[in-house]
Protein backbone atom coordinates (compact mmCIF):
# COMPACT_ATOMS: atom_id res chain seq x y z
CA UNK A 1 0.00 0.00 0.00
CA UNK A 2 1.47 3.33 -0.97
CA UNK A 3 1.00 6.58 0.89
CA UNK A 4 -1.80 7.83 -1.32
CA UNK A 5 -3.88 4.77 -0.63
CA UNK A 6 -3.45 5.36 3.08
CA UNK A 7 -5.04 8.79 3.00
CA UNK A 8 -8.29 8.24 4.82
CA UNK A 9 -10.04 11.12 3.06
CA UNK A 10 -9.45 9.38 -0.23
CA UNK A 11 -10.77 6.08 1.03
CA UNK A 12 -13.87 7.73 2.42
CA UNK A 13 -14.30 9.85 -0.67
CA UNK A 14 -14.32 6.83 -2.89
CA UNK A 15 -16.89 5.14 -0.69
CA UNK A 16 -19.10 8.04 0.20
CA UNK A 17 -18.86 10.41 -2.65
CA UNK A 18 -17.62 9.18 -5.97
CA UNK A 19 -15.69 11.50 -8.25
CA UNK A 20 -18.63 11.91 -10.60
CA UNK A 21 -20.98 12.88 -7.76
CA UNK A 22 -18.43 15.33 -6.43
CA UNK A 23 -18.02 16.89 -9.83
CA UNK A 24 -21.77 17.10 -10.29
CA UNK A 25 -22.12 18.84 -6.93
CA UNK A 26 -19.36 21.31 -7.70
CA UNK A 27 -20.80 22.03 -11.12
CA UNK A 28 -24.24 22.62 -9.65
CA UNK A 29 -22.99 25.54 -7.57
CA UNK A 30 -21.65 28.75 -9.02
CA UNK A 31 -17.90 29.03 -8.87
CA UNK A 32 -15.27 31.31 -10.33
CA UNK A 33 -11.83 29.81 -10.86
CA UNK A 34 -9.35 32.52 -9.88
CA UNK A 35 -6.56 30.63 -11.59
CA UNK A 36 -8.14 31.43 -14.94
CA UNK A 37 -7.92 35.18 -14.33
CA UNK A 38 -4.84 36.35 -16.22
CA UNK A 39 -3.36 38.75 -13.68
CA UNK A 40 -4.01 36.41 -10.72
CA UNK A 41 -2.54 33.32 -12.40
CA UNK A 42 1.15 34.30 -12.12
CA UNK A 43 0.63 35.36 -8.51
CA UNK A 44 -0.58 31.86 -7.67
CA UNK A 45 1.77 29.98 -9.96
CA UNK A 46 4.98 31.58 -8.73
CA UNK A 47 6.23 30.83 -5.22
CA UNK A 48 7.76 34.29 -4.91
CA UNK A 49 4.73 36.46 -3.97
CA UNK A 50 3.72 34.04 -1.23
CA UNK A 51 7.31 33.72 -0.06
CA UNK A 52 7.69 37.50 0.22
CA UNK A 53 4.54 37.80 2.32
CA UNK A 54 5.64 34.90 4.51
CA UNK A 55 9.10 36.41 4.92
CA UNK A 56 7.39 39.59 6.08
CA UNK A 57 5.14 37.77 8.54
CA UNK A 58 8.15 35.79 9.80
CA UNK A 59 10.06 39.01 10.41
CA UNK A 60 7.00 40.45 12.16
CA UNK A 61 6.68 37.28 14.23
CA UNK A 62 10.31 37.41 15.39
CA UNK A 63 9.95 41.11 16.17
CA UNK A 64 6.75 40.41 18.11
CA UNK A 65 8.54 37.85 20.27
CA UNK A 66 11.43 40.26 20.84
CA UNK A 67 9.02 43.08 21.74
CA UNK A 68 7.18 40.78 24.14
CA UNK A 69 10.38 39.68 25.86
CA UNK A 70 12.23 42.97 26.02
CA UNK A 71 9.59 45.69 25.63
CA UNK A 72 7.40 47.41 28.19
CA UNK A 73 5.41 45.20 30.52
CA UNK A 74 2.44 47.52 30.10
CA UNK A 75 0.29 45.69 27.57
CA UNK A 76 -1.15 48.78 25.88
CA UNK A 77 2.41 50.01 25.18
CA UNK A 78 3.77 46.77 23.80
CA UNK A 79 3.69 45.75 20.14
CA UNK A 80 3.31 42.07 21.07
CA UNK A 81 0.03 42.54 22.92
CA UNK A 82 -1.51 45.07 20.58
CA UNK A 83 -0.52 43.43 17.33
CA UNK A 84 -1.26 39.86 18.33
CA UNK A 85 -4.46 40.29 20.32
CA UNK A 86 -5.94 43.45 18.83
CA UNK A 87 -4.72 43.79 15.22
CA UNK A 88 -4.05 40.20 14.09
CA UNK A 89 -6.80 38.52 16.12
CA UNK A 90 -9.32 41.04 14.79
CA UNK A 91 -8.11 40.69 11.19
CA UNK A 92 -8.28 36.91 11.50
CA UNK A 93 -11.91 36.89 12.58
CA UNK A 94 -13.21 39.81 10.55
CA UNK A 95 -11.37 39.24 7.28
CA UNK A 96 -9.10 36.21 6.91
CA UNK A 97 -11.56 33.52 8.03
CA UNK A 98 -14.94 34.79 6.79
CA UNK A 99 -13.56 35.82 3.40
CA UNK A 100 -10.57 33.55 2.89
CA UNK A 101 -11.03 30.47 5.08
CA UNK A 102 -7.56 29.22 5.97
CA UNK A 103 -5.91 32.03 4.02
CA UNK A 104 -3.93 33.02 7.11
CA UNK A 105 -2.38 29.52 7.13
CA UNK A 106 -0.99 30.22 3.65
CA UNK A 107 1.13 33.08 5.03
CA UNK A 108 1.57 31.95 8.65
CA UNK A 109 5.24 32.12 9.68
CA UNK A 110 5.13 29.53 12.47
CA UNK A 111 5.74 26.37 10.39
CA UNK A 112 8.23 28.03 7.99
CA UNK A 113 11.66 27.23 9.48
CA UNK A 114 10.62 23.66 10.22
CA UNK A 115 9.39 23.22 6.68
CA UNK A 116 12.57 24.69 5.24
CA UNK A 117 14.64 22.28 7.29
CA UNK A 118 12.36 19.39 6.40
CA UNK A 119 12.65 19.99 2.66
CA UNK A 120 16.27 21.22 2.78
CA UNK A 121 15.40 24.32 0.84
CA UNK A 122 13.51 27.57 1.02
CA UNK A 123 11.66 27.95 -2.26
CA UNK A 124 12.33 24.56 -3.79
CA UNK A 125 12.86 21.13 -2.30
CA UNK A 126 16.52 20.21 -2.01
CA UNK A 127 16.73 16.47 -2.37
CA UNK A 128 16.04 13.96 0.40
CA UNK A 129 13.88 15.11 3.29
CA UNK A 130 15.55 16.01 6.56
CA UNK A 131 14.31 14.57 9.84
CA UNK A 132 12.68 11.32 10.87
CA UNK A 133 9.57 11.82 8.67
CA UNK A 134 7.45 9.56 10.89
CA UNK A 135 3.73 9.17 10.33
CA UNK A 136 1.52 11.03 12.79
CA UNK A 137 0.04 8.47 15.26
CA UNK A 138 -3.37 7.39 14.04
CA UNK A 139 -4.97 7.70 17.47
CA UNK A 140 -3.93 11.36 17.68
CA UNK A 141 -5.46 12.30 14.34
CA UNK A 142 -8.40 14.69 14.15
CA UNK A 143 -8.91 17.93 16.03
CA UNK A 144 -8.85 16.59 19.61
CA UNK A 145 -5.47 18.14 20.39
CA UNK A 146 -6.47 21.41 18.76
CA UNK A 147 -9.56 21.58 20.98
CA UNK A 148 -7.37 20.86 24.02
CA UNK A 149 -4.90 23.56 22.97
CA UNK A 150 -7.71 26.08 22.59
CA UNK A 151 -9.05 25.19 26.03
CA UNK A 152 -5.56 25.53 27.50
CA UNK A 153 -5.19 29.01 26.01
CA UNK A 154 -8.67 29.82 27.33
CA UNK A 155 -7.71 28.79 30.86
CA UNK A 156 -4.78 31.21 30.84
CA UNK A 157 -6.35 33.79 28.53
CA UNK A 158 -6.55 36.65 31.03
CA UNK A 159 -2.79 36.52 31.47
CA UNK A 160 -1.85 35.57 27.90
CA UNK A 161 -3.88 38.45 26.47
CA UNK A 162 -2.51 41.06 28.84
CA UNK A 163 1.08 40.11 29.67
CA UNK A 164 3.57 40.73 26.87
CA UNK A 165 6.12 38.29 28.30
CA UNK A 166 3.58 35.48 28.44
CA UNK A 167 2.41 36.25 24.90
CA UNK A 168 6.03 36.06 23.72
CA UNK A 169 6.61 32.74 25.48
CA UNK A 170 3.39 31.30 24.06
CA UNK A 171 4.47 32.30 20.54
CA UNK A 172 7.96 30.97 21.14
CA UNK A 173 6.56 27.67 22.40
CA UNK A 174 4.33 27.30 19.33
CA UNK A 175 7.34 28.09 17.15
CA UNK A 176 9.54 25.53 18.92
CA UNK A 177 6.82 22.91 18.83
CA UNK A 178 6.27 23.45 15.10
CA UNK A 179 9.99 23.13 14.35
CA UNK A 180 10.43 20.12 16.65
CA UNK A 181 7.45 18.25 15.21
CA UNK A 182 8.54 18.91 11.64
CA UNK A 183 11.84 17.22 12.42
CA UNK A 184 10.13 14.16 13.86
CA UNK A 185 6.94 13.81 11.82
CA UNK A 186 6.28 14.13 8.13
CA UNK A 187 4.76 17.23 6.58
CA UNK A 188 2.86 19.79 8.67
CA UNK A 189 1.94 17.70 11.69
CA UNK A 190 1.85 20.78 13.92
CA UNK A 191 -0.56 22.69 11.67
CA UNK A 192 -2.80 19.70 11.01
CA UNK A 193 -3.15 18.32 14.51
CA UNK A 194 -1.81 20.70 17.17
CA UNK A 195 -2.18 24.37 16.28
CA UNK A 196 -5.24 25.72 18.14
CA UNK A 197 -5.53 28.61 15.69
CA UNK A 198 -5.45 26.07 12.87
CA UNK A 199 -8.36 24.28 14.51
CA UNK A 200 -10.26 27.55 14.87
CA UNK A 201 -9.65 28.68 11.28
CA UNK A 202 -10.09 25.19 9.84
CA UNK A 203 -13.52 24.56 11.23
CA UNK A 204 -14.87 27.96 10.16
CA UNK A 205 -13.12 27.75 6.77
CA UNK A 206 -15.99 25.49 5.75
CA UNK A 207 -18.24 28.53 5.64
CA UNK A 208 -15.79 30.66 3.64
CA UNK A 209 -16.14 31.44 -0.07
CA UNK A 210 -12.76 30.01 -1.13
CA UNK A 211 -11.70 26.48 -1.99
CA UNK A 212 -9.02 24.54 -3.80
CA UNK A 213 -10.50 21.66 -5.79
CA UNK A 214 -9.77 19.49 -8.79
CA UNK A 215 -11.38 20.51 -12.07
CA UNK A 216 -11.83 17.14 -13.75
CA UNK A 217 -11.84 14.11 -11.48
CA UNK A 218 -11.18 11.69 -14.34
CA UNK A 219 -7.88 13.40 -15.16
CA UNK A 220 -6.85 13.04 -11.52
CA UNK A 221 -7.87 9.42 -11.31
CA UNK A 222 -5.78 8.52 -14.33
CA UNK A 223 -2.73 10.50 -13.26
CA UNK A 224 -0.60 7.86 -11.58
CA UNK A 225 2.19 10.09 -10.20
CA UNK A 226 -0.17 12.08 -7.92
CA UNK A 227 2.28 14.97 -7.84
CA UNK A 228 -0.29 17.10 -6.05
CA UNK A 229 -0.32 14.74 -3.10
CA UNK A 230 3.43 14.20 -3.18
CA UNK A 231 3.98 17.96 -2.96
CA UNK A 232 1.22 18.90 -0.52
CA UNK A 233 2.84 19.99 2.76
CA UNK A 234 -0.41 19.08 4.52
CA UNK A 235 -0.50 15.54 3.14
CA UNK A 236 -3.82 16.05 1.36
CA UNK A 237 -4.99 14.56 -1.89
CA UNK A 238 -7.07 17.25 -3.68
CA UNK A 239 -9.36 14.75 -5.38
CA UNK A 240 -10.45 13.50 -1.97
CA UNK A 241 -11.10 16.91 -0.39
CA UNK A 242 -14.59 16.89 1.03
CA UNK A 243 -14.36 20.32 2.59
CA UNK A 244 -11.88 23.12 3.16
CA UNK A 245 -11.19 22.44 6.83
CA UNK A 246 -7.80 20.83 6.27
CA UNK A 247 -6.51 22.68 3.19
CA UNK A 248 -4.07 25.46 4.07
CA UNK A 249 -4.33 27.12 0.63
CA UNK A 250 -0.56 26.82 0.10
CA UNK A 251 -1.13 26.28 -3.66
CA UNK A 252 1.56 23.61 -3.95
CA UNK A 253 -0.91 21.19 -5.59
CA UNK A 254 -1.74 23.81 -8.17
CA UNK A 255 1.95 24.45 -8.88
CA UNK A 256 2.82 20.80 -9.20
CA UNK A 257 -0.13 19.61 -11.29
CA UNK A 258 1.19 18.90 -14.79
CA UNK A 259 -2.35 18.85 -16.20
CA UNK A 260 -3.50 22.27 -14.92
CA UNK A 261 -6.33 20.44 -13.24
CA UNK A 262 -6.52 22.35 -9.96
CA UNK A 263 -8.85 25.30 -9.44
CA UNK A 264 -8.84 28.02 -6.81
CA UNK A 265 -12.53 28.74 -6.65
CA UNK A 266 -14.54 31.58 -5.28
CA UNK A 267 -17.72 29.83 -4.25
CA UNK A 268 -20.98 30.59 -2.41
CA UNK A 269 -20.63 31.06 1.34
CA UNK A 270 -21.21 27.89 3.32
CA UNK A 271 -20.71 25.48 0.41
CA UNK A 272 -19.12 22.85 2.66
CA UNK A 273 -21.89 22.75 5.22
CA UNK A 274 -25.40 21.34 5.21
CA UNK A 275 -24.55 18.00 3.62
CA UNK A 276 -25.34 14.92 5.68
CA UNK A 277 -22.33 12.82 4.77
CA UNK A 278 -19.91 15.65 5.52
CA UNK A 279 -18.39 16.42 8.88
CA UNK A 280 -19.61 13.38 10.70
CA UNK A 281 -16.50 13.45 12.85
CA UNK A 282 -17.05 13.72 16.61
CA UNK A 283 -13.76 15.60 17.05
CA UNK A 284 -15.04 18.38 14.80
CA UNK A 285 -18.33 18.47 16.73
CA UNK A 286 -16.43 18.92 19.99
CA UNK A 287 -14.27 21.61 18.42
CA UNK A 288 -17.38 23.49 17.24
CA UNK A 289 -18.89 23.25 20.75
CA UNK A 290 -15.64 24.35 22.40
CA UNK A 291 -15.66 27.41 20.14
CA UNK A 292 -19.23 28.24 21.21
CA UNK A 293 -18.46 27.73 24.90
CA UNK A 294 -15.28 29.79 24.68
CA UNK A 295 -17.11 32.66 22.96
CA UNK A 296 -19.57 32.72 25.86
CA UNK A 297 -16.85 32.49 28.51
CA UNK A 298 -14.60 35.13 26.95
CA UNK A 299 -17.53 37.51 26.52
CA UNK A 300 -18.42 37.13 30.19
CA UNK A 301 -14.83 37.59 31.38
CA UNK A 302 -13.64 40.35 29.08
CA UNK A 303 -16.68 42.50 28.35
CA UNK A 304 -18.91 41.69 31.31
CA UNK A 305 -19.10 43.93 34.39
CA UNK A 306 -18.12 41.17 36.81
CA UNK A 307 -14.83 42.14 38.42
CA UNK A 308 -14.74 38.97 40.49
CA UNK A 309 -14.67 36.89 37.30
CA UNK A 310 -11.85 38.97 35.80
CA UNK A 311 -9.80 38.72 38.99
CA UNK A 312 -10.35 34.96 39.17
CA UNK A 313 -9.32 34.46 35.54
CA UNK A 314 -6.19 36.55 36.12
CA UNK A 315 -5.05 35.11 39.45
CA UNK A 316 -3.50 31.94 38.02
CA UNK A 317 -2.90 29.24 40.61
CA UNK A 318 -5.20 30.80 43.22
CA UNK A 319 -8.29 28.97 44.53
CA UNK A 320 -10.45 31.52 42.64
CA UNK A 321 -8.65 30.68 39.39
CA UNK A 322 -9.08 26.95 40.02
CA UNK A 323 -12.79 27.56 40.44
CA UNK A 324 -12.82 29.65 37.25
CA UNK A 325 -10.89 26.92 35.43
CA UNK A 326 -13.32 24.24 36.58
CA UNK A 327 -16.25 26.39 35.45
CA UNK A 328 -14.60 27.09 32.09
CA UNK A 329 -13.89 23.41 31.46
CA UNK A 330 -17.32 22.35 32.68
CA UNK A 331 -18.98 24.84 30.35
CA UNK A 332 -16.96 23.65 27.35
CA UNK A 333 -16.76 19.94 28.02
CA UNK A 334 -19.99 19.21 29.88
CA UNK A 335 -22.65 21.91 29.57
CA UNK A 336 -22.33 22.74 25.86
CA UNK A 337 -21.81 19.17 24.58
CA UNK A 338 -24.46 17.89 27.04
CA UNK A 339 -27.06 20.45 26.00
CA UNK A 340 -26.39 19.93 22.30
CA UNK A 341 -26.46 16.15 22.60
CA UNK A 342 -29.75 16.45 24.49
CA UNK A 343 -31.17 18.61 21.69
CA UNK A 344 -30.08 16.14 19.00
CA UNK A 345 -31.36 13.21 21.08
CA UNK A 346 -34.72 14.92 21.56
CA UNK A 347 -34.94 15.57 17.82
CA UNK A 348 -34.02 11.97 17.04
CA UNK A 349 -36.57 10.59 19.48
CA UNK A 350 -39.36 12.95 18.38
CA UNK A 351 -38.82 12.27 14.68
CA UNK A 352 -38.27 8.53 15.11
CA UNK A 353 -34.86 8.64 13.50
CA UNK A 354 -32.74 5.51 13.89
CA UNK A 355 -29.41 7.20 13.18
CA UNK A 356 -26.78 6.48 15.81
CA UNK A 357 -26.75 9.37 18.31
CA UNK A 358 -22.98 9.89 18.08
CA UNK A 359 -23.16 10.18 14.32
CA UNK A 360 -26.22 12.43 14.48
CA UNK A 361 -24.49 14.78 16.93
CA UNK A 362 -21.42 14.97 14.70
CA UNK A 363 -23.55 15.56 11.65
CA UNK A 364 -25.80 18.20 13.21
CA UNK A 365 -22.77 20.06 14.60
CA UNK A 366 -22.44 21.67 11.16
CA UNK A 367 -25.36 23.86 12.24
CA UNK A 368 -23.13 25.40 14.90
CA UNK A 369 -20.50 26.76 12.52
CA UNK A 370 -22.11 30.06 11.40
CA UNK A 371 -23.47 30.53 14.92
CA UNK A 372 -19.97 30.26 16.39
CA UNK A 373 -18.20 32.29 13.71
CA UNK A 374 -20.63 35.19 14.01
CA UNK A 375 -20.55 35.04 17.81
CA UNK A 376 -16.75 35.44 17.63
CA UNK A 377 -17.09 38.33 15.19
CA UNK A 378 -19.60 40.08 17.47
CA UNK A 379 -17.31 39.52 20.46
CA UNK A 380 -14.34 40.91 18.52
CA UNK A 381 -16.17 44.11 17.68
CA UNK A 382 -16.79 44.92 21.32
CA UNK A 383 -13.39 43.66 22.39
CA UNK A 384 -11.07 45.21 19.84
CA UNK A 385 -12.71 48.24 18.26
CA UNK A 386 -12.50 50.52 21.32
CA UNK A 387 -8.78 49.77 21.54
CA UNK A 388 -7.79 50.36 17.91
CA UNK A 389 -6.02 53.61 18.83
CA UNK A 390 -3.31 51.52 20.50
CA UNK A 391 -2.33 50.11 17.09
CA UNK A 392 -1.16 53.51 15.83
CA UNK A 393 0.47 54.22 19.14
CA UNK A 394 2.62 51.06 19.25
CA UNK A 395 3.66 51.47 15.62
CA UNK A 396 5.56 54.55 16.75
CA UNK A 397 6.71 53.10 20.05
CA UNK A 398 6.64 49.29 19.68
CA UNK A 399 8.67 48.53 22.78
CA UNK A 400 7.10 51.17 25.00
CA UNK A 401 10.44 52.88 25.46
CA UNK A 402 9.19 56.40 24.79
CA UNK A 403 10.00 56.48 21.06
CA UNK A 404 7.86 58.34 18.53
CA UNK A 405 9.08 56.92 15.22
CA UNK A 406 6.04 57.83 13.10
CA UNK A 407 4.70 60.66 15.22
CA UNK A 408 1.69 58.61 16.29
CA UNK A 409 2.87 57.51 19.74
CA UNK A 410 0.40 59.73 21.55
CA UNK A 411 -2.56 59.12 19.28
CA UNK A 412 -5.71 59.41 21.30
CA UNK A 413 -8.01 58.78 18.35
CA UNK A 414 -10.22 55.77 18.67
CA UNK A 415 -13.20 54.93 16.49
CA UNK A 416 -16.30 56.00 18.41
CA UNK A 417 -18.27 52.82 18.02
CA UNK A 418 -20.31 53.20 21.19
CA UNK A 419 -23.51 54.06 19.33
CA UNK A 420 -22.99 51.89 16.28
CA UNK A 421 -21.25 48.82 17.71
CA UNK A 422 -24.13 47.34 19.79
CA UNK A 423 -26.48 47.53 16.79
CA UNK A 424 -23.84 45.89 14.61
CA UNK A 425 -23.33 43.15 17.19
CA UNK A 426 -27.05 42.39 17.33
CA UNK A 427 -27.23 42.27 13.53
CA UNK A 428 -24.21 39.96 13.33
CA UNK A 429 -25.62 37.56 15.92
CA UNK A 430 -28.94 37.46 14.06
CA UNK A 431 -27.23 36.73 10.73
CA UNK A 432 -25.35 33.85 12.40
CA UNK A 433 -28.58 32.46 13.85
CA UNK A 434 -30.39 32.76 10.51
CA UNK A 435 -27.56 31.06 8.66
CA UNK A 436 -27.49 28.24 11.21
CA UNK A 437 -31.25 27.80 10.88
CA UNK A 438 -30.89 27.54 7.10
CA UNK A 439 -28.20 24.87 7.45
CA UNK A 440 -30.45 22.95 9.84
CA UNK A 441 -33.12 23.24 7.18
CA UNK A 442 -30.77 21.97 4.45
CA UNK A 443 -29.72 19.01 6.62
CA UNK A 444 -33.29 18.14 7.50
CA UNK A 445 -34.32 18.05 3.85
CA UNK A 446 -31.88 15.23 3.22
CA UNK A 447 -33.54 12.76 5.58
CA UNK A 448 -36.81 10.90 5.46
CA UNK A 449 -37.74 11.95 8.99
CA UNK A 450 -40.21 14.78 9.74
CA UNK A 451 -37.84 17.75 9.40
CA UNK A 452 -39.57 19.99 11.93
CA UNK A 453 -39.46 17.44 14.74
CA UNK A 454 -35.87 16.53 14.06
CA UNK A 455 -34.61 20.09 13.95
CA UNK A 456 -36.75 22.06 16.39
CA UNK A 457 -34.70 21.14 19.51
CA UNK A 458 -31.47 22.05 17.68
CA UNK A 459 -32.91 25.40 16.65
CA UNK A 460 -33.96 25.93 20.27
CA UNK A 461 -30.35 25.28 21.34
CA UNK A 462 -29.16 27.86 18.79
CA UNK A 463 -31.76 30.38 19.99
CA UNK A 464 -30.75 30.00 23.65
CA UNK A 465 -27.08 30.46 22.71
CA UNK A 466 -27.88 33.56 20.65
CA UNK A 467 -29.95 35.07 23.46
CA UNK A 468 -27.11 34.45 25.93
CA UNK A 469 -24.65 36.16 23.58
CA UNK A 470 -27.09 39.04 23.03
CA UNK A 471 -27.38 39.55 26.76
CA UNK A 472 -23.61 39.47 27.24
CA UNK A 473 -23.00 41.86 24.32
CA UNK A 474 -25.72 44.47 24.72
CA UNK A 475 -27.58 43.53 27.90
Amino acid at each position, binding site marked *: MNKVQEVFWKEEASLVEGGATLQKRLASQKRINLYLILWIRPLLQSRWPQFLVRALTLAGFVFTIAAGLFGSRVGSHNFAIIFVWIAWWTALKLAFIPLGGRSWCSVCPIPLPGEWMQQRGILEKGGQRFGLSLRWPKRLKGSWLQSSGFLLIGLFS*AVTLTDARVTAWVLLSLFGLAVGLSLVFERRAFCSYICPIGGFTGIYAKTAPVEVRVIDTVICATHSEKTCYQNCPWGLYPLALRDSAQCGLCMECLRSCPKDNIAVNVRPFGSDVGQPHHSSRPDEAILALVMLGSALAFSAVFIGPWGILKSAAFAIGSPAWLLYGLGFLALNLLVMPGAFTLAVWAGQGWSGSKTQLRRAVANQAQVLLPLGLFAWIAFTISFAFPKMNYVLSVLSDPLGWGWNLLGTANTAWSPDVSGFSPILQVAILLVGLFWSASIAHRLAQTTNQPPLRQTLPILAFCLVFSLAMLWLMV*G
Partner: protein
Amino acid sequence: MRETRNKWFSIWRWAALAGLALLVLFLPIPVNATTPVERTFHIQASQFAYSPAVLSVNPGDRVTIELLATDVVHGLSIDGYNLETTADPGQAARLTFVADRQGSFRFRCTVTCGNMHPFMIGKLQVGRNDLLWRGALLAGLVLIAGIWGLRK
Protein backbone atom coordinates in the same frame (compact mmCIF):
# COMPACT_ATOMS: atom_id res chain seq x y z
CA MET B 1 -54.77 25.14 -8.40
CA ARG B 2 -53.70 23.84 -5.02
CA GLU B 3 -50.09 24.56 -5.88
CA THR B 4 -50.89 28.19 -6.73
CA ARG B 5 -52.83 28.56 -3.48
CA ASN B 6 -49.90 27.15 -1.49
CA LYS B 7 -47.51 29.46 -3.29
CA TRP B 8 -49.62 32.51 -2.43
CA PHE B 9 -49.98 31.33 1.14
CA SER B 10 -46.23 30.97 1.39
CA ILE B 11 -45.66 34.46 -0.04
CA TRP B 12 -48.18 35.97 2.40
CA ARG B 13 -46.61 34.12 5.29
CA TRP B 14 -43.13 35.44 4.54
CA ALA B 15 -44.49 38.93 3.90
CA ALA B 16 -46.23 38.83 7.28
CA LEU B 17 -43.00 37.75 8.92
CA ALA B 18 -41.06 40.53 7.22
CA GLY B 19 -43.72 43.02 8.31
CA LEU B 20 -43.47 41.77 11.85
CA ALA B 21 -39.70 42.11 11.74
CA LEU B 22 -40.04 45.72 10.54
CA LEU B 23 -42.48 46.39 13.37
CA VAL B 24 -40.04 44.97 15.91
CA LEU B 25 -37.28 47.09 14.43
CA PHE B 26 -39.01 50.43 14.12
CA LEU B 27 -42.16 50.48 16.27
CA PRO B 28 -41.69 53.15 18.95
CA ILE B 29 -42.20 51.60 22.36
CA PRO B 30 -43.84 53.95 24.89
CA VAL B 31 -41.56 54.94 27.71
CA ASN B 32 -42.92 54.75 31.26
CA ALA B 33 -43.08 58.36 32.32
CA THR B 34 -41.18 58.83 35.57
CA THR B 35 -40.33 62.02 37.35
CA PRO B 36 -36.61 62.67 36.98
CA VAL B 37 -34.78 62.46 40.28
CA GLU B 38 -31.27 63.10 41.54
CA ARG B 39 -29.26 59.91 41.99
CA THR B 40 -25.82 59.62 43.53
CA PHE B 41 -23.63 56.55 43.25
CA HIS B 42 -20.47 56.01 45.28
CA ILE B 43 -18.29 53.75 43.16
CA GLN B 44 -15.16 52.14 44.51
CA ALA B 45 -12.59 51.40 41.82
CA SER B 46 -9.87 48.83 42.43
CA GLN B 47 -7.92 46.53 40.14
CA PHE B 48 -9.90 45.53 37.94
CA ALA B 49 -13.45 46.14 39.07
CA TYR B 50 -15.97 48.81 39.93
CA SER B 51 -18.20 48.35 42.93
CA PRO B 52 -21.08 48.63 42.29
CA ALA B 53 -20.49 47.63 38.67
CA VAL B 54 -24.06 47.99 37.48
CA LEU B 55 -25.90 51.31 37.87
CA SER B 56 -29.62 51.54 37.09
CA VAL B 57 -31.33 54.89 36.53
CA ASN B 58 -34.40 56.21 34.75
CA PRO B 59 -34.24 58.34 31.63
CA GLY B 60 -33.95 62.01 32.59
CA ASP B 61 -32.45 61.36 36.02
CA ARG B 62 -29.65 63.66 37.10
CA VAL B 63 -26.83 61.25 37.98
CA THR B 64 -23.80 61.98 40.12
CA ILE B 65 -21.01 59.43 40.23
CA GLU B 66 -18.48 59.74 43.02
CA LEU B 67 -15.48 57.67 42.02
CA LEU B 68 -13.08 56.56 44.73
CA ALA B 69 -9.90 54.76 43.71
CA THR B 70 -8.79 52.42 46.48
CA ASP B 71 -5.44 51.16 45.15
CA VAL B 72 -3.98 52.95 42.10
CA VAL B 73 -5.20 55.74 39.82
CA HIS B 74 -8.39 54.77 37.99
CA GLY B 75 -10.61 56.57 35.53
CA LEU B 76 -14.16 56.26 34.29
CA SER B 77 -15.66 57.08 30.90
CA ILE B 78 -19.13 56.13 29.75
CA ASP B 79 -19.68 54.84 26.19
CA GLY B 80 -22.08 57.09 24.33
CA TYR B 81 -22.02 59.88 26.91
CA ASN B 82 -18.66 61.51 26.15
CA LEU B 83 -17.85 61.91 29.86
CA GLU B 84 -14.66 61.15 31.70
CA THR B 85 -13.10 61.53 35.11
CA THR B 86 -9.97 60.35 36.90
CA ALA B 87 -9.49 59.58 40.57
CA ASP B 88 -6.19 59.44 42.47
CA PRO B 89 -5.95 56.85 45.24
CA GLY B 90 -7.89 57.97 48.29
CA GLN B 91 -9.34 61.04 46.56
CA ALA B 92 -12.86 61.06 45.19
CA ALA B 93 -13.69 62.44 41.75
CA ARG B 94 -17.21 63.53 40.80
CA LEU B 95 -19.07 63.31 37.57
CA THR B 96 -22.57 64.75 37.10
CA PHE B 97 -24.76 64.35 34.04
CA VAL B 98 -28.35 63.92 32.91
CA ALA B 99 -29.10 60.36 31.75
CA ASP B 100 -30.80 61.49 28.54
CA ARG B 101 -29.95 58.44 26.42
CA GLN B 102 -31.91 55.28 27.06
CA GLY B 103 -30.32 51.82 26.96
CA SER B 104 -27.36 49.94 28.36
CA PHE B 105 -23.94 51.60 28.25
CA ARG B 106 -20.56 50.26 29.29
CA PHE B 107 -18.25 52.41 31.39
CA ARG B 108 -14.51 51.77 31.31
CA CYS B 109 -11.35 52.65 33.16
CA THR B 110 -9.39 55.33 31.31
CA VAL B 111 -6.05 55.13 33.13
CA THR B 112 -3.74 52.16 32.62
CA CYS B 113 -4.06 50.47 36.00
CA GLY B 114 -2.56 47.02 35.41
CA ASN B 115 -2.76 44.02 33.13
CA MET B 116 -6.54 43.69 33.05
CA HIS B 117 -7.08 47.45 32.68
CA PRO B 118 -8.58 47.20 29.16
CA PHE B 119 -11.29 44.95 30.57
CA MET B 120 -12.16 46.98 33.68
CA ILE B 121 -15.77 47.57 32.76
CA GLY B 122 -19.07 48.52 34.42
CA LYS B 123 -22.58 49.00 33.13
CA LEU B 124 -24.99 51.95 33.21
CA GLN B 125 -28.61 50.99 32.55
CA VAL B 126 -30.86 53.88 31.64
CA GLY B 127 -34.46 52.70 31.63
CA ARG B 128 -35.50 49.79 29.48
CA ASN B 129 -32.93 48.22 27.15
CA ASP B 130 -34.89 48.37 23.90
CA LEU B 131 -31.99 47.11 21.79
CA LEU B 132 -31.80 43.90 23.82
CA TRP B 133 -35.56 43.31 23.65
CA ARG B 134 -35.78 44.08 19.95
CA GLY B 135 -32.79 41.82 19.32
CA ALA B 136 -34.37 38.99 21.32
CA LEU B 137 -37.68 39.35 19.47
CA LEU B 138 -35.91 39.36 16.11
CA ALA B 139 -34.02 36.22 17.15
CA GLY B 140 -37.41 34.63 17.85
CA LEU B 141 -38.61 35.66 14.39
CA VAL B 142 -35.48 34.19 12.82
CA LEU B 143 -36.33 30.93 14.56
CA ILE B 144 -39.92 31.08 13.28
CA ALA B 145 -38.54 31.65 9.78
CA GLY B 146 -36.36 28.60 10.26
CA ILE B 147 -39.31 26.51 11.42
CA TRP B 148 -41.47 27.65 8.51
CA GLY B 149 -38.70 26.74 6.16
CA LEU B 150 -38.74 23.23 7.60
CA ARG B 151 -42.40 22.57 6.82
CA LYS B 152 -42.63 20.67 3.57
